[in-house]
């Protein structure tokens, strides 16, 4: 690790003041940042510890939830209101990382973890445009089984590894940010960037911006929702593909639906095309499959990940089928 100073912020305004200094980084649970610093992929000169700030979960007047950025992943997953009203969010968090990491990791830090692949970590041996802009990408023609099939660019084919953010994308969550210009809100769907020619920039935040909360708006039919993750081992692995979905049935037809996909793109992928295709139509396996195929119409698979569109399609068909019957665990 390169040397840095450490300070703990006592309140948000103080944190934002300290975080505005050059080469500063906010520290939550440290589960991604400390690891990246040890590999010298991240080299902040000032760490501002914000892990003790904004640690509450409260009901909003509208009937949603306001989740403090410092809330631990485990705390959010076990929260009674989340389990009962937004089960896809609990399920997504519980599918991610290990229990020890979920105990450390904060909600804000989960959003801020780097979009990444193994070549990004390999500082000594691989070229990576995300780590060193303009250096090239060894993943594109390398071992790319876990990489993106949607929205990637010549510069970068990494995927965003968060499970929680996939559920938040499906829920139209809103990110509350405080920076030198004051307080503002951003839709989670627009919070993470596609790589384009700047894969070194993962989010739309400006330097010094601090996430203070994530708001989940009310969604009645989210009680009928779930998250399914497909991976190479049964636990503690990144997703090959994942599906967060909520389904509102009207008899045997789809009244409304929310779908987001993980493991397929540089950001949590809201499947808006598939949703539009399904809304008002029949809740049949053929309709689910047709909608999924529409979502992947522009997929650009690489050498090792051509299975992803079909795997994601089958997973989505299975999840929606279970939700249509009301028995998705």
């Amino acid at each position, binding site marked *: 690790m390169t040397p840095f100073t450490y300070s703990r912020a006592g309140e948000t305004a103080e944190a934002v003041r300290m975080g505005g200094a050059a080469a500063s980084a906010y520290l939550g649970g440290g589960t991604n940042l400390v*690891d990246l610093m040890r590999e010298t992929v991240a080299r902040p000169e000032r760490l501002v510890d914000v892990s003790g700030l904004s640690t509450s979960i409260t009901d909003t007047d509208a009937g949603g939830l306001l989740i403090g950025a410092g809330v631990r992943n485990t705390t959010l997953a076990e929260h009674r209101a989340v389990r009962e009203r937004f089960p896809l969010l609990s399920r997504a968090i519980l599918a991610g990382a290990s229990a*020890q990491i979920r105990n450390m990791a904060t909600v804000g830090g989960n959003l801020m973890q780097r979009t990444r692949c193994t070549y990004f970590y390999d500082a000594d041996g691989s070229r990576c445009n995300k780590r060193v802009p303009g250096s090239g990408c060894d993943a594109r023609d390398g071992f790319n089984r876990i990489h993106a099939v949607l929205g990637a660019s010549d510069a970068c084919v990494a995927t965003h590894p968060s499970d929680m953010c996939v559920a938040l994308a499906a829920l139209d969550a809103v990110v509350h940010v405080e920076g030198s210009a004051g307080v503002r809100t951003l839709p989670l769907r627009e919070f993470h960037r596609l790589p384009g020619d700047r894969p070194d920039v993962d989010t739309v935040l400006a330097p010094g911006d601090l996430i203070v909360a994530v708001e989940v708006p009310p969604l009645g039919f989210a009680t009928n929702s779930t998250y399914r993750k497909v991976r190479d081992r*049964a636990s503690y692995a990144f997703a090959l593909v994942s599906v967060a979905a909520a389904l509102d049935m009207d008899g045997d037809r789809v009244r409304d639906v929310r779908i987001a996909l993980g493991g397929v793109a540089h950001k949590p992928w809201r499947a808006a095309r598939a949703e539009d295709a399904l809304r008002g139509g029949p809740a049949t396996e053929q309709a689910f499959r047709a909608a999924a195929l529409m979502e992947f119409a522009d997929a650009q698979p690489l050498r090792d990940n051509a299975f992803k569109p079909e795997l994601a399609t089958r997973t989505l068909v299975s999840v929606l089928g279970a939700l249509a019957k009301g028995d998705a665990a």
Partner: protein
Amino acid sequence: MSLIVNGTSVAPPDDPRVSLLDHLREGLHLTGTKKGCNQGACGACTVLVDGERILSCLALAVQYDGRHITTVEGLAQDDALHPLQAAFIEHDGFQCGYCTPGQICSAIGMAAEVERGVPSHVTADLRADAALTREEIQERMSGNLCRCGAHNGIVAAIQATFVVEAQA
């Protein structure tokens, strides 16, 4: 500034780069906590902070000012082993022993999570409390790898310690 390690107040490291793991092992000579991967993938460095299991390799020691840290050295009461330590011996919960301190700290943290009602990835009903079945233990302990493959003994030791207790 101080950390409370196994009930004793100790100074944090001067350099903020020092991980909690390195501070325990090299600063305090508490070498029970092990360094496996040093990147959050194996669980060998698991310790308890205010009763919750975390990975000490991904923790900066300075971040834990004022917190109560329990390592494997802090589990026994004088010469009496913690019941889970005794159960690991009884059920052959280890071969080489390198992952064992992390496994034991992790399982104690896990039992507290189950007691509190925290669900897991394999909990069928999120609104009900989970039972400590074999499947639940395997999922909840998946952050602790055992290269010797002593998992059957580990699960048996955990069940013998915490399931029996829960039914008593």
